[in-house]
Structures are given as structure tokens and as C-alpha cells.
């Protein structure tokens, strides 16, 4: 059989042709594919992860369970994607900063944070985050003290990570919903920390 690998850069045409072949063979269904896209475009996003993190700030028992077995908590919350993939939550403290990367491709906790941002899929980030995380963080605008230990977590198909950022100062007495609104996507990847309230 001739090896007619596509060379043209018409990605739209290539995708449509491939999807129609897969559809004809009963492997995908265009209607449920639309639902998948809709779900990832509008239903999931960093607000989901932020809800878990905010609750962990106000509820010590929840925080303990999240750190012990985040997958079990994610399942309780009916989050998808953790049937065959583990989820590990790692907490930032005054002496430890956690950073998540996927050196292989772009493994990411989709159902908690939505789809990964472009910079996370970038070759430079994937290669450099494990080699020189402090420099990477500095270029991202986060200058950590030398005493702070940086831990880098390499995501895989088997395990995804969620960083629990430190609760910012000046947020005492705030409700979970208010706290969740302060939590950014990048803080849950470890690419930034959350500024104290009143200092932004």
C-alpha cells in the first residue's frame, strides 16, 4: 500500500477528513464531540480548582484529605478524568514552593484547571522547568528567597498535580467564594504566588 502521508498544511481539511473516517467507522460521534468541546470551552476551568483550594484554606480537615488523597476528593466532587489517572495535591508553604510541568507533552489536570495555557505547552518551559526552575520562576516574575526549596513535579499520563498556593495575607474572615475568586490558574501550577490583599 502506498504511503501517502499528508504533506499539505491544510489542517482543517485533514481534521475533517480524519473525523469523517472515524465517524463512519463508529469510533467517534460528532454530536458528542461537540459536547466535549462545549464542556472544555465553557464548563471546566480554573474556577473548579480554585473552589477546592479555597475550601482547603478554611477547612483543615478538607485540606488534610486533599493532601492525603486528592483523587478521592476529586471523585467526591464528581470531577471527571481521574478514573485511571491519579491526582496529587502539593501545598506551598513559607519554605517550599511547588512547580508543575509536563516534560513529555502537556499532561495537566483538565477537569480542575481547564485546558493548559500555551506557555505550559511551550518547548522552552517543558525543557527548562526541571533544569532551572528558579530562573524560570524569576522570568515569570517570581523571585524566591534562596532559603525556599523549589520542588518540580513532572506530570505524566498516570499522575497529575495541583498546587495549593499559600493563602494571601489580609484575607482573614473572607468566605470561600470570595477566596476562590482570588485564586489564579497559574498559582495552581506554581508559576506565581498570590499577592497579599491590599498590596496588589
Amino acid at each position, binding site marked *: 500500500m502506498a504511503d501517502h502521508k499528508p504533506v499539505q498544511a491544510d489542517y482543517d481539511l485533514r481534521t475533517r477528513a480524519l473525523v469523517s473516517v*472515524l465517524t463512519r467507522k463508529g469510533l467517534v460521534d460528532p454530536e458528542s464531540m461537540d459536547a466535549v468541546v462545549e464542556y472544555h470551552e465553557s464548563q471546566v476551568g480554573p474556577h473548579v480548582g480554585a473552589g477546592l483550594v479555597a475550601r482547603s484554606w478554611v477547612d483543615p480537615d478538607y485540606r488534610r484529605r486533599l493532601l492525603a488523597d486528592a483523587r478521592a476528593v476529586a471523585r467526591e466532587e464528581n470531577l471527571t478524568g481521574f478514573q485511571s489517572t491519579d491526582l496529587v495535591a502539593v501545598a506551598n508553604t513559607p519554605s517550599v514552593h511547588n512547580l508543575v510541568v509536563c516534560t513529555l507533552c502537556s499532561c495537566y489536570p483538565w477537569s480542575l484547571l481547564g485546558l493548559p495555557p500555551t506557555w505550559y505547552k511551550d518547548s522552552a518551559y517543558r525543557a527548562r522547568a526541571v533544569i532551572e526552575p528558579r530562573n524560570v520562576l524569576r522570568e515569570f516574575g517570581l523571585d524566591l528567597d534562596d532559603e525556599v526549596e523549589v520542588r518540580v513535579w513532572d506530570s505524566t499520563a498516570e499522575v497529575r498535580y495541583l498546587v495549593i498556593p499559600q493563602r494571601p495575607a489580609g484575607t482573614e474572615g473572607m468566605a470561600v467564594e470570595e477566596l476562590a475568586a482570588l485564586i489564579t490558574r497559574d498559582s495552581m501550577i506554581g508559576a506565581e504566588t498570590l499577592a497579599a490583599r491590599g498590596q496588589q
Partner: protein
Amino acid sequence: MGDPDKLAQLSLLSRDETGPPFGEPWQAQAFAAVVELIESGRLTQEEWSQRLSVELKAAESRGEYDTGERYYVHWLAALERFAVDKEITAWNELAEEREETRMNDHHRRDEQLKSS
């Protein structure tokens, strides 16, 4: 493998991106097809991660250090190769399908021009 020294010198992308998750509709379609295949058990997370990383590494070894923008190009290539490797389809069947899709597009466009 790409040259690690070169990779180490690449500058990072800015983190201020807040755009839509998909740049173009075909990216969403390619993404959704993989999600469907994984959810139906026809493809495992492990295999997909492996296949995608092969495409990404091949691009890097050609010196194409991705800035993340060509990510779904590699995604699509990995999906095509999966379908061919698993004998779900063949390269020439995909080529024929593209040709047919292109012809249908032309036909539709001609019809629209006639009716307008």
C-alpha cells in the same frame, strides 16, 4: 531529541495569555476526537501521551522548537498516525477522504454562488 543546550537558551512565553482554549475550530475537533477515543477505551492516556511526545520530540529534533502555537499540529499528526497504526484507516484512504471533502466544498461554494 532536541539539543538540550539550545532548549535551555529558549526564552519563555509570557503568562498573560487569556485567549480562548482553541485557536481554530479544527483544533477543537482534533482535541474532542482524542477525548472520545480515550473515554471509549480505544486509546489509553498512556498511549496518547507517548504518541504525542514522539511527535513533539520529532519536531524538536528538526529544530522546530514549539512555542505552543503549533501544538495541535502535532496533536493532529499523532492522531492520524494512531488511526493508521491501528489499521482504522490508511494514508491513502485519508488522502481520498480529503480530496472528496475538498470537492464537496467546491461544489457547495458553486451552489451558493449560483443561488446568490
